[in-house]
């Protein structure tokens, strides 16, 4: 008895192709930099916005490159590069309203940029001076979450809070609020992520699940996580799933904007699979040569998220040399500031850790702190003696 006789036929449901380049992939800007039409989604921004995207993409990549360099020079313990995923992050990040809340993984440096989080703040965690140095309530950008998938439940709970606060479906664009939860292709296998899909659909919570399928979970290819395209997972939970070209900033922007709009209006959750590629190592500690072929990388370089915007702007004469030079100069300046800031980041005082465990610390913990302070002091006195 064949699959086709048994239950709905996936081919019939999703169309012939399950390939990344299949018809279900939403693309508005080709790798060659040509605009594409799509029946459901269209880019409604201005050319000025596109120049803005270009700037975001270039600056994000530069920040990432500088951080990688800092790690190589021993200034960071580790760095998780977003190289190749700039469009997915900038497109989705720019599609958010100021009041929307973001729950990132550890790789959303481009989204952080869109939320005006000082890139320097991101380095603290990777340098080992803190575990999250920014205030999530300032930029509506949550702390990086390292336990894979955990943040998707936080995002869903936060979205349930929005419903209770009456800021969903009021038809007031300045008021209606949504949540976006970022995660990867590996994370979609975690129980927590699937439970978050259940909660979101049962409570019709205003949360958009944004999965950056960069084809790899450290050394494991996407086939180790799913035998069908990831966006189709949503169908099993009763909300829409859509696959977008993750290297196409316009498509990521348009699809995320539509999904967030739906969520804020009270139409519930959606899953966006941004089909992209991790062009670098998993982290600076990783060695991809052990598990993947260089030719894949070459193939994906042809789809570079920045090159296509560059081509689009140039081909259509939408940006002159001054513009490009200006962005370059800004990038240099930001990179320099980042490096300088990193090097001058103060080391934490070990005694401070006792102060962040509880809102109301126990006398016992205070004693531990005091005793440890005396202990540390005893060495200094020795030293001075």
């Amino acid at each position, binding site marked *: 008895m064949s699959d086709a006789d048994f239950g709905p036929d996936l081919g019939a449901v999703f169309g012939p192709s399950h390939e990344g380049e299949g018809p279900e992939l939403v693309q508005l800007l080709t790798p060659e930099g040509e605009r594409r039409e799509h029946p459901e989604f269209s880019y409604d921004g201005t050319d000025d916005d596109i120049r803005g995207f270009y700037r975001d993409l270039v600056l994000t990549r530069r920040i990432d490159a500088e951080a990688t360099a800092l790690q190589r020079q021993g200034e960071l313990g580790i760095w998780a590069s977003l190289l190749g995923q700039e469009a997915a992050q900038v497109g989705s990040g720019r599609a958010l309203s100021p009041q929307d809340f973001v729950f990132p993984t550890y790789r959303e440096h481009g989204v952080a940029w869109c939320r005006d989080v000082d890139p320097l703040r991101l380095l603290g965690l990777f340098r080992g001076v*803190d575990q999250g140095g920014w205030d999530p309530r300032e930029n509506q950008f949550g*702390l990086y979450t390292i336990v894979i998938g955990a943040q998707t439940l936080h*995002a869903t709970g936060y979205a349930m809070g929005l419903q209770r*606060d009456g800021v969903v479906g009021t038809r007031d664009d300045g008021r209606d609020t949504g949540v976006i939860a970022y995660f990867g292709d590996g994370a979609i296998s975690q129980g*927590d992520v699937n439970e978050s899909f259940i909660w979101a659909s049962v409570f019709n919570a205003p949360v958009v699940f944004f999965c950056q399928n960069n084809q790899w979970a450290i050394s494991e290819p996407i086939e180790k996580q799913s035998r069908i395209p990831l966006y189709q997972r949503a169908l099993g939970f009763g909300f829409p799933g859509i696959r977008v070209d993750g290297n196409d900033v316009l498509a990521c922007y348009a699809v995320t904007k539509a999904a967030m709009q739906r969520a804020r209006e009270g139409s519930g959750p959606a899953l966006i699979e941004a089909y992209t590629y991790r062009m670098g190592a998993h982290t600076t500690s990783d060695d991809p040569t052990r598990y993947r072929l260089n030719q894949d990388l070459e193939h994906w370089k042809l789809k570079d998220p920045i090159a296509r915007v560059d081509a689009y702007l140039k081909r259509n004469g939408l940006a002159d040399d001054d513009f490009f030079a200006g962005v370059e100069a800004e990038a240099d300046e930001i990179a320099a500031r980042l490096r300088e800031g990193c090097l001058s980041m103060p080391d934490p005082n070990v005694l401070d850790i006792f102060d962040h465990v509880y*809102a109301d610390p126990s006398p016992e913990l205070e004693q531990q702190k005091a005793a440890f302070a005396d202990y540390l002091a005893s060495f200094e006195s020795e030293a001075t003696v």
Partner: protein
Amino acid sequence: MAQITLAKALTNGMRVAMEADDKVLLMGEDIGKLGGVFRVTDGLQKDFGEDRVIDTPLAESGIVGTAVGLALRGYRPVCEIQFDGFVYPAYDQIVSQVAKLRFRSLGKLPMPIVIRIPFGGGIGAVEHHSESPEAQFVHQAGLKVVACANPVDAYWMIQQAIASDDPIIFLEPKRRYWEKAELDETVTEAPRPLHSSRIVHEGSDATVLAYGPMVKTSLEAAVAAAEEGKTLEVVDLRTLSPFDMDPVYASARKTGRVVVVHEAPVTAGLGAELAARITEECFYSLESPVLRVGGFDTPYPPSRVEEEYLPDLDRVLDAVDRSLAY
């Protein structure tokens, strides 16, 4: 003043907390119309609505994980875990998120979450319904852990736990849910701070430390001992993280002999921590080593043998005698 069960005292305590602060939410399995399998949330959904008393999908990680998100949005979720043995699917969210988010955020993100767990055995239940997981939570910095032992404490401690800006594992002595006591609900001041221990029976021959369900057992032991002319000092620890050790040390110095009682297996249980601390602090006052009475190092057994498995009056007295004979 009316007699009230421990379960009902919890219900009323939560009701007061929900009336005082509309950010307080209850979440869990079957806590709505059913009022929870122990009826602890009985009537609360009817009075506060489905948005504040939330019947969740059947997944504990989801319950605690979404509670974290609600807390980040300014809510004060009170999660009910249906039985002790079912807290483990939520263990990752509790240990790596609830306990650590304040620390991770350098104090910026409070986690005012209460996780209610009916714990312990003695009700003739099947597997996973009679466990005592407290030691594991006490080992996790960032969490606070308390256990109530009587209706009056239940009423006040649940309100104090909900008012706390720190995450609290709130342990409810399952088999004492139906114990009654007089409770004056017109009082508006809590009789004592949440994180304080309390001497519930004075004595001078030996000290018995207990919490949750074992407090009653220890008090019974004290009565029995009195008949044999021995006076036991029984301390209801109430707070397990942080511990409130001063009354414990004082009692240990007074009696020189200490027995710790809990249902959880002895190995790496809280009796070990208490014994280690008391010995460090009262070394020269101890007439005998701190003895531990607890579950054996086996999984919780079938209910037909639980009465023998569980520490009871005789096991407590046996330990007291061994301590006195030392």
